């Protein structure tokens, strides 16, 4: 690998410094709101970095999930926190709030924490510099087996065939997070009732488009960047938009039908795993001839579930319990 050219130096150096600066600001600027906005900006810059690192799949995931959905979650949480504060209704609340937002532990503790962290940074840096400058990792192994995987995008091949077991557990994590949140029994926020015509219009325009994009990402994932997670998060974003615009799932669908949608991805995964186990004696072993079809089925159901879970994560409260509380 040749040394970096000056332009590359400039771009990558700027991205690197920008990332560090944004992270620093996001973590230490006094106002929480600014911090969140800076964090979203950080996520976008990360996306750029992923592109520079020739990982467009990750860039897509980052922009949709890392910056987009996480950002939306952070902002909505921030707004709810502020509502709590407002409900407490104290005259000096603004000052209090700002103080609590930047409250840290005692200065002595700062040094106590900074020293080992710095040591760790130095150690890690040294460790990384000691690594061999050339390494192919598993890329050759992936390339050799790509034909048998049923897809031509190596990242998708890894995610849904070579290491499909990880992905199965990962969808389980996603579902688990939602079940965990639901068991917290958070009250639905009341203030979202006001409808905004512009937002409504935006939602109406964008939702079909997002659906389309999602379908495209799902389909294209087999041979180019994209795949279930990216598609699912775009679809989930449509859900978030609808939620923001005040749209709610009808109660008749919020019970079992919703739950089935939430688990269909994971269930299909398990069902396929078991079928393959029965058929070929090995968990998640797809016959190469049918691999692409199986992966497509897996991805489609996963997209559906991921989208539903992400939107539900954003909503926070359990839709079928809302009237009980």
């Amino acid at each position, binding site marked *: 690998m040749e040394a970096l050219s000056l332009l590359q130096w400039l771009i990558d150096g700027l991205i690197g410094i920008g990332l560090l600066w944004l992270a620093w600001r996001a973590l230490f600027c006094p106002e929480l709101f600014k911090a969140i906005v800076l964090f979203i900006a950080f996520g976008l810059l990360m996306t750029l970095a992923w592109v520079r690192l020739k990982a467009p799949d990750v860039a897509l995931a980052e922009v949709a999930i890392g910056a987009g959905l996480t950002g939306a979650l952070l902002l909505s949480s921030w707004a709810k926190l502020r509502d709590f504060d407002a409900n407490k209704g104290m005259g000096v609340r603004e000052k209090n709030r700002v103080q609590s937002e930047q409250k840290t532990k005692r200065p002595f503790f700062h040094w106590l924490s900074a020293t080992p962290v710095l040591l760790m940074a130095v150690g890690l840096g040294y460790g990384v510099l000691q690594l061999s400058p050339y390494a192919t990792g598993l890329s050759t192994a992936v390339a050799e087996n790509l034909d048998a995987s049923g897809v031509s995008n190596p990242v998708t091949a890894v995610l849904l065939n070579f290491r499909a077991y990880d992905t199965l557990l990962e969808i389980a994590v996603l579902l688990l997070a939602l079940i965990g949140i639901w068991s917290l029994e958070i009250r639905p926020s009341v203030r979202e009732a006001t409808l*905004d015509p*512009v*937002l409504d*219009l*935006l939602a109406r*325009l964008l939702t079909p*488009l997002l659906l389309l994009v999602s379908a495209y990402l799902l389909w294209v994932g087999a041979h180019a960047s994209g795949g279930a997670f990216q598609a699912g998060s775009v679809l989930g974003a449509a859900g978030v938009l609808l939620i923001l615009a005040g749209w709610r799932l009808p109660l008749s669908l919020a019970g079992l039908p919703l739950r089935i949608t939430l688990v269909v991805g994971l269930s299909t995964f398990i069902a396929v795993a078991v079928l393959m186990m029965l058929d070929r004696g090995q968990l998640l072993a797809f016959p190469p001839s049918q691999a692409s079809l199986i992966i497509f089925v897996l991805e489609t159901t996963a997209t559906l579930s991921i989208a539903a879970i992400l939107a539900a994560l954003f909503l926070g409260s359990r839709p079928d319990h809302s009237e009980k509380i």
Partner: protein
Amino acid sequence: MTLSDYLSVLFLLAGAVFFLAGTVGLLRFPDVYTRLHALTKADNVGLGLIVIGLAMQAESYASVGKLLLIWLLVLLAGSSISHLIAKKALQKGVRMWRR
């Protein structure tokens, strides 16, 4: 470099100038409404110019279409969101700047 390349550079540079102006406006203008104004106007035009500059380099019409789509989407999102921000600011009673 061909003529289209030169034109591309020109459009891209012009776009960058607009972006710069928008950013300066965002930082320097006195209140939220004027800042929104500066940002959206300059960015929409700036993005448009950059899209044109890139479209000249595109390999297929599909790519041109995608670029245009990006521009339209940003227009849509930008205008709706600045509308929402301005509305919220009005609701909260943020005063407009007067000289």
